[in-house]
């Protein structure tokens, strides 16, 4: 069962940006059997996440008029996992082995489990609002609320207060996203979607004012510089994406128009 780290519900659990270890519980069903394994990993370094995303190498080809997508997520996840894994639980030792020290357990953990763990790392959502509010005009900052699952807890209301972006920032965001690579000479119009993690993190560092719901070694983060240094790169990316791509629900807008006005 997962608990909640939502401050609004009074538990006041903050998301630690410098944890000693991260526990990831993976419930699995395989071949008619049910398993529950636990991976203990350390926080990935920024450069490790950059390498992970770079190794992901998402590509698209047009084959018979259809877009065919591929990537190297297994290899990328395996490299990252092998680097950050500290120990595992819920696995039995292979025959003939008496202790974990005797075996190269990192190599024995199935790639599919590593992939699942890497997916969990990347699962950062935007909080789904429950109530409609009046949009504040003339604001100098915007707040983005993220939701993350870790250590069996759901951390919602992780707030990122960012400066109101200017035209320059919007232009940069679009430029970053519209930069994809063409593989010269390919008949199938092979396109590589490079990782934009570093650039989006740069944009975040420019815009961040303060955060709520986070902690660095148990204390609240200080100024923007400290946040830029400690904030998880994947959280930065999610916050910037949420800031620049507001979800406009056309169907909802149409439905809203038909409702009687107060």
């Amino acid at each position, binding site marked *: 069962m997962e608990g909640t780290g939502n401050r609004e519900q009074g538990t006041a659990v903050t998301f630690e940006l410098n944890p000693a270890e991260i526990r990831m519980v993976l419930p699995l069903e395989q071949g008619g059997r049910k398993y529950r394994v636990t991976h203990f990993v350390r926080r990935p370094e920024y450069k490790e996440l950059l390498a992970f995303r770079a190794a992901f190498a998402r590509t698209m080809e047009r084959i018979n008029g259809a877009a065919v997508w591929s990537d190297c997520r297994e290899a990328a996840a395996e490299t990252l996992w092998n680097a950050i894994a500290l120990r595992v639980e819920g696995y039995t030792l292979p025959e003939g082995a008496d202790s974990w020290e005797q075996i190269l357990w990192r190599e024995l953990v199935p790639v599919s489990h590593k992939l699942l763990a890497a997916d969990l790392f990347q699962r950062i959502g935007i909080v789904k609002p429950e109530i409609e509010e009046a949009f504040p005009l003339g604001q100098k900052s915007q707040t983005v609320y993220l939701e993350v699952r870790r250590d069996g807890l759901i951390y919602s209301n992780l707030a990122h207060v960012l400066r109101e972006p200017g035209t320059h920032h919007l232009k940069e965001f679009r430029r970053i996203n519209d930069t994809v690579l063409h593989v*010269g000479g390919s008949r199938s119009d092979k396109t590589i979607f490079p990782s934009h993690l570093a650039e989006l993190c740069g944009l975040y560092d420019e815009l961040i004012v303060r955060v709520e719901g986070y902690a660095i070694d148990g204390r609240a983060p200080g100024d923007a510089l400290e946040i830029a240094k400690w904030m998880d790169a994947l959280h930065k990316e999610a916050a910037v994406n949420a800031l620049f791509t507001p979800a406009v629900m056309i169907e909802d807008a149409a439905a809203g128009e038909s409702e009687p006005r107060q």
Partner: protein
Amino acid sequence: MQTVEPSRDLNALAGFLPVYIERAVSQAELGLAARRKALRIATAVNPERERNRDSNPSRDSYGAALSFPVPYAFERWIAHLAWLDQLSKGIELAAAGLTPGEAQGLALLRQAREKFWSEHTSCFACSSVNLRNAKFCGDCGKDL
């Protein structure tokens, strides 16, 4: 294999821009034709006959000829340049801090567009795009 970043390969960009513009016009033309057909069906005495009428085959072959793909990476970049061009009508672009690739690409986009309109004109009656030296509109037949 060599990877190409559209913002840096200006020669390739200059080559794809006319194709992109012609294709965009062709798609807009197809949209216009569909709209005209819908209007005709709405006002026709026999809507069924109007609905079943074959579309202009010469225009279809024109559209098919232009389905030659501009590489997706270039499409994305040209769309970005077109957005910048649109943006420049409302604000001073210098304030947005263009990169060299954006500035050069924008200049190429504007050149290609000017060249296209120096060779084409739109019909005053139905807005179809025709060659500039055409005597009458290829779609509605009005004198140009």
